[in-house]
């Protein structure tokens, strides 16, 4: 079967640009994208930070599935794809058509990593998500596994069932399961890096240095003048 080349929003002719951050839990990506958003909006640019703001309907099904542990790898994948599609169609596409710089805390690479580790066919998952264009820029925050784990385990002692990959049956100990699960995710991210041209940022350096690197990379690939609010 011929593979359709996946395109970015710029390649598809959208006036807006999508910037995503990816990485495992505790990599510090949310802090970085927040600072990126502040930098852009303080310059008076059209920027939108997209949080997971799914419709009530999809959210309610997902919540029931998780709480009652109804989900298999396949339905876990599909319900999250539904949620992503909802956000994509209702929020991301309209904003990108309106010429916004849209910042996403996680994009489809999160699903590729998570679902593949859960045992879904990588090809199946990727094809499902190919209704969504590629980001124009994706930053992959990578810190040694122990660093990420320490950040999470210190700050948030109560780990969630699915976040720790408990459904995979890797270990009955939630902390141990979390470590094994995150380690597997990290490996998949490593493989996706060259395939999708993710820009790796060393997340084991001070916040300021990471942010400076991110801002420079962004300014180099996106002509920020075009995104002034008054235009």
């Amino acid at each position, binding site marked *: 079967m011929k593979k359709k080349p996946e395109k970015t929003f710029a390649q598809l002719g959208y006036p807006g640009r999508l910037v995503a951050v990816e990485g495992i839990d505790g990599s510090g990506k949310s802090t970085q994208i927040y600072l990126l958003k502040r930098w852009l909006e303080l310059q008076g640019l059209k920027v939108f930070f997209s949080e997971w703001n799914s419709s009530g309907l999809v959210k309610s*099904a997902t919540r029931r599935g998780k709480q009652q542990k109804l989900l298999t790898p396949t*339905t876990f994948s599909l319900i999250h794809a539904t949620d992503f599609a909802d956000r994509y169609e209702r929020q991301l596409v309209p904003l990108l058509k309106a010429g916004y710089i849209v910042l996403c805390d996680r994009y489809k690479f999160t699903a590729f990593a998570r679902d593949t580790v859960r045992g879904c066919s990588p090809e199946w998952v990727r094809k499902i998500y190919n*209704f969504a264009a590629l980001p124009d820029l994706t930053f992959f925050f990578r810190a040694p596994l122990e660093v990420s784990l320490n950040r999470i385990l210190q700050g948030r002692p109560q780990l969630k069932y699915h976040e720790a990959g408990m459904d995979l049956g890797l270990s009955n100990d939630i902390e141990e399961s979390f470590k094994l699960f995150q380690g597997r995710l990290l490996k998949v991210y490593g493989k996706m890096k060259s395939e999708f041209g993710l820009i790796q940022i060393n997340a084991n350096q001070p916040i300021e240095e990471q942010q400076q690197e991110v801002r420079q990379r962004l300014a180099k690939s996106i002509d920020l003048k075009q995104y002034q609010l008054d235009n």
Partner: protein
Amino acid sequence: MATKRKTSPLTRPAKRFFGHELPGVKPSELTGKLIVIEGADGSGRSTQIKRLVDWLEARGHATTQVGLKRSNLASEELERAKNGNILNRTTLSLFYATDFADQLENTIIPSLRAGFVVLADRYIYTLMARDLVRGLDEEWVRNLYSIALRPDAVFYLKLSPEKLIQRNFMKNHTLDYWESGMDLGLSMDMFDSFVQYQQRLADQFEMMRKNFDFTIVDADQSVDELNNELRSHTERVIH
């Protein structure tokens, strides 16, 4: 995927996945039979299934029934989405796929493992036809449902849109928004929209015949005649 298959329907091993196998399922363990009844609303699906169940159970076969929007995971929300028409097409398509996968893994596969005859009131074909009529990419749709099990038999109850409309009026005295495809904006007139939409779905089923095995059954006959025809087809699959 189906286009690659060249084996004849008779020699082809039953109950294999169309494409991607589900994690943890061995097709050889699935000793039951999966029988699918497809057709538009008003083609007589539920009446025929009820009768097939009676007949099968009278002969000592254990049965399970599945259908669209019957999963624990997504049925409630799908019903609400239908009433409010608030989800876009890709989202709705994936939500239906979620509902299907939930029933596949939690009902269909366990029942087949236990040697039951599973009767499906609609299956992936209706879901695919609806998506394709709404302009979703065919390869994308095929991939989405490549996790489905290939049924032992698929019966498509065929009835012209004009006859369907008469049956719908006899049953409800009204046309359903979704069965009329009103979300496609084919016509502001519900009657026209229904006829056009059902014709498009029928065309999709016609095209799908090339890739999937259907037994097309003329639904324009009496309940008894139709059921006799379905029984004789089913008999061949069951023993």
